[in-house]
């Protein structure tokens, strides 16, 4: 399964100059790093509000760049009725974030060459 929705991410890359697209992906990378730490810290501390807030921001950031699988996992974390505990969801989010970043970086490189 692809880690990004090519329609959304490529549309973004086509709509913008390469420098702007690169800056968005760098911002996304910063968001991922900060929000993943917040998410894991909140999960360890049992801080449910903080966990939900971080998951909500992660979902928003992922949606912006078409990282749909990551967005879906973050929405599971946001959902108070979800049967999946943080110990299950957090590693999934981490893996999907990593995969999304790799594919987006490849996309940046492809559009930089054009």
């Amino acid at each position, binding site marked *: 399964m692809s880690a990004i929705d090519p329609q*959304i991410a490529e*549309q*973004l890359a086509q*709509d*913008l100059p390469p420098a*702007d*697209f690169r*800056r*968005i992906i760098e*911002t*996304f990378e*910063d*968001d991922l790093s900060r929000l993943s730490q917040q998410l894991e810290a909140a999960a360890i501390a049992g801080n449910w509000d903080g966990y939900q*807030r971080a998951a*909500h*921001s992660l*979902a*928003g*950031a992922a*949606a*912006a*760049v*078409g990282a749909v699988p990551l967005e879906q996992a973050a*929405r599971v974390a946001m959902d108070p009725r979800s049967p999946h505990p943080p110990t299950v969801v957090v590693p999934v989010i981490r893996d999907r974030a990593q995969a999304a970043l790799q594919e987006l970086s490849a996309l940046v490189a492809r559009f930089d060459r054009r």
Partner: protein
Amino acid sequence: MSGSAGRVLLVEDTPTQAEVARSHLRDLGHEIRTVETAAEALAQARAWDPDAILLDLELPDFSGLDVLKTLRAEGSETAVIVITANAPMNTAVEVMRAGATDFLPKPYPKAKLVFTLQNAMEKRALVIEKRALESELHAARALTARQGFMGFIGASPAMQAVYRTIESVASSRANIFITGESGTGKELAAEAVHKASPRAARPFVALNCGAIPRDLLESEIFGHVKGAFTGATESRTGAARQADGGTLFLDEIGEMPLEMQVKLLRFVQTGSFQPVGGSRPERVDVRFVCATNHDPLAEVEAGRFREDLYYRLYVVPIELPPLRSRGADVLLVARAFLAQFSREENKRFRRFSPEAEAAILGYPWPGNVRQLQNVVRNVVVLHEGERVEATMLPPPLLCAGPGGGEAPPITVATSLVPVPPPVIEIMPLAEMERRLILAALEHTGQDVPRAASLLEINPSTIYRKLQAWRGPKRVTG
């Protein structure tokens, strides 16, 4: 405002989302400020007075919806575009009811954001222009309220507001959505918008979506090529092409089938369409004016009208007041009809008696101007004299009393035949047909599709007949 730079406040707590929006807007020349919380959004909106706010709904301190409601309660007219992800449709309806200018789901392509923002800013500019015009005209209006405008008759404050709105929006390209009860003059308002616009010299094409069979509607709007379907022996130009450069008026838009709404949405968004059976899209420049006598938001909520099409068409609303809310306008309109029909029927009627005027004023007119038109025409046709007496009016008008209230129904017999004959009156077939159609319209409260159904004819037949009876000139209130 379209195409010009303005102040845009971006309220977004996720840096990636904010960066996407800023990047999309970078080359438009707007001054953009970004805040991350609802409290900061309120502070900036008050201090900086932006032209538009791009507002995320889910903010860390409190909801974007509360920001919107607070600003509207304070009288802010800033264009507010609510942007959110995964929102259910009732959220869209709720934010539009709370005063949002538009609603944009995430993620969105650049073109959509730019289009929505420019539309919203143009709408705000119109509001400001309208406000300036209102204050400019305030003094003049107090002295001489207009008695009529572009075929409308009426000097009431409600109609003055309609005239001003039409004048304000006419020169814009913004789509117009007209609402109002049956018989309030929605097509006349559409024509007025067209005539007051820079498109006046180009065609005004009106299409009644409720009067055209479902399977012919696409061909009526977009045309067809020869051989497109059985019976398409010649290529035919549709309303969209006919209205190129001018105005396309889609009446009873709520009656349009959902599958046709999808095609109309594409046309509204892109300006291009494909004739039935055609292979290449055609591009035209039309301004859309739509009308319905239903509550369009309720239709969206009920799933009968596409939400995205609603947002594209409902840019500038014009609400036509019912006749019962227009005070003494009813007499102005009745007198104008009396003069017109007396002339057309070669009668001597010049005025109404005070008792007749009191009865007309006291009746609530559920069928609005169209019902008043029918009553006056029937009085003129069936009576003689210089003055219309109260006894010449249908009995329900005399029962209503001053101040209106519940409208006693005007039955076919009372409205059309003062003394019901014991046997069928023999008359020319065409006259009988006219009376029967008018009676069916009275019976259904001027609902043409229902009247057509009762008569087992096509609604378009009724429209054609009414048009023919109305003649080339008409007066409408």
